[in-house]
């Protein structure tokens, strides 16, 4: 690996371990998980053109029964 390259497998493994996924479960997930993390990373380039998110919650003005 050269400078500037991202070690997706290592990052992904750390994320899964930090979330409490058992170490012995990770090998079966790692290939798909790396693809997800790499895919997510590419989306950062969209940020300058993205709007604020729509309101995803609304103030509650009365207590629900």
């Amino acid at each position, binding site marked *: 690996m050269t400078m500037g390259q991202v070690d997706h497998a290592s990052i992904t493994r750390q*994320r*899964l371990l930090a979330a409490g996924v058992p170490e012995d479960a990770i090998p079966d*997930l790692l290939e*798909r998980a790396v693809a997800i993390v790499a*895919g997510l990373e590419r*989306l950062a380039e*969209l940020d300058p053109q*993205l709007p604020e998110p729509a309101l995803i*919650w609304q103030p509650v003005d009365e207590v629900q029964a």
Partner: protein
Amino acid sequence: VIGPDLAYARISELAPLIRKREVSPVEVTDAVLERIDRLNPTINAYITVTSDVARDRARLAEREIADGHYRGPLHGIPYSLKDLYLTAGIRTTGGSRILRDNVPTEDSTVAQLLREAGGILVGKTNMHEFAYGTTTINPHYGTARNPWDLDRVTAGSSGGSSAATAAGLGFASMGSETGFSIRRPAAFCGVVGLKPTYGRVSRHGMLPAAWSLDHAGPLTRSVEDAALVLQAIAGHDRRDPASSDRGRPDFVGGIGHGVAGLRVGLPRHHYEHSVEPAVGAAFDAAVATLASLGAVPVEIRLPRVAYATVTSSIIMYAEVTAAHDRWIHERPEDYGEDTRGRVRLGYCVGAVDYARGQRMRRWIAEEIAATFRDVDVIASPTTPQVATPIAGGLPALRDQGFEVADGLYNLLRLYALIGIPAIAIPCGFSPDGLPISLSIAGSAYDEATILRVAHAYEQATTWSQRRPPID
């Protein structure tokens, strides 16, 4: 004895007979239960059959109607609920081992409304475990089988609902979708699947998959029947924080007004290279039929929709995993292998990713809102392929959920992602006899227009009248 003809009747045909007391709800319910008893061991559409409850409710409906208290077109009509709608006194498993013995003490809003409309609940349908998958190959309750070919999947997650409706094991079934779990099962099983606008139908008392994506909607054997069910279940519910307060318009009255002059948007770049030849041919013929009825095809481009699948996946993975955070740590062995894996993969989606996903969601929704200035509905094939073999599963989305590309899956995911209404209706059959489906989507809260277009198409064709080879 009521034969297949009545089993395959539409609600709109049966209701007047029940109202006039030419057919008894008890007679119809017994016939449906007999049919379930005979066919469900093969199709596995139901996890729980509620025979005693159904017969009690049928007798009550018969008495009420005899006494002059006819409640409306669902009175005395046998129907089913996907097994994630809570039902008081009737177990609700979510297709999971974890909830195998879960017996709720109160009804979901949908179950309550359908009971109040006089519907006869005949059972709880099979589903992909926790509605988190696309096959209804369920490790705990068995695989739901496609009535058109028992070796093919029903799709999912509402696969029991689509199979039950296709096989005449009830006159309607309530499904749910987070990505496309009403419409793809409807497509694979040759029935109508309606996903209403987000917030149109209360999700109170439904087991969640992903809160900001979950929708409730019916599967039926005709467009009008879907409108009749929607009429009964739509409306504001304070107990669902996403519930719309826009009231309950008339979904049925305008259904026969035709399509003359309606503009039908065709985003060809999202499907022309990604569908099987038979699907493409059936869709082109469907567009020609709509044009012959007076609709106006309009070519459109939806470039941001290339991001619909990945955006939906970000939000879905994060929300589903959040919902399962406790159980996946405390009881991982009680999940099936594929659901356990997907829930764990959700931990790969971080907080920044989730926030970006919500921003992308609005970015895409703005493009679609602008498109509806130029067209009245968007049409496409519902799915790129017909039902696939159970032996092969449905791998198409397994590793593609985080890719960005044109393709029909984006349109499948789009409508649940941005909450606009969409309907799947039969539009043909493949050379080996498997159903093909047409998708019609409309602008937010405009279910009436997509029902109108779908009904016009249905009336002009005979695809919905075919029956699977199971009798």
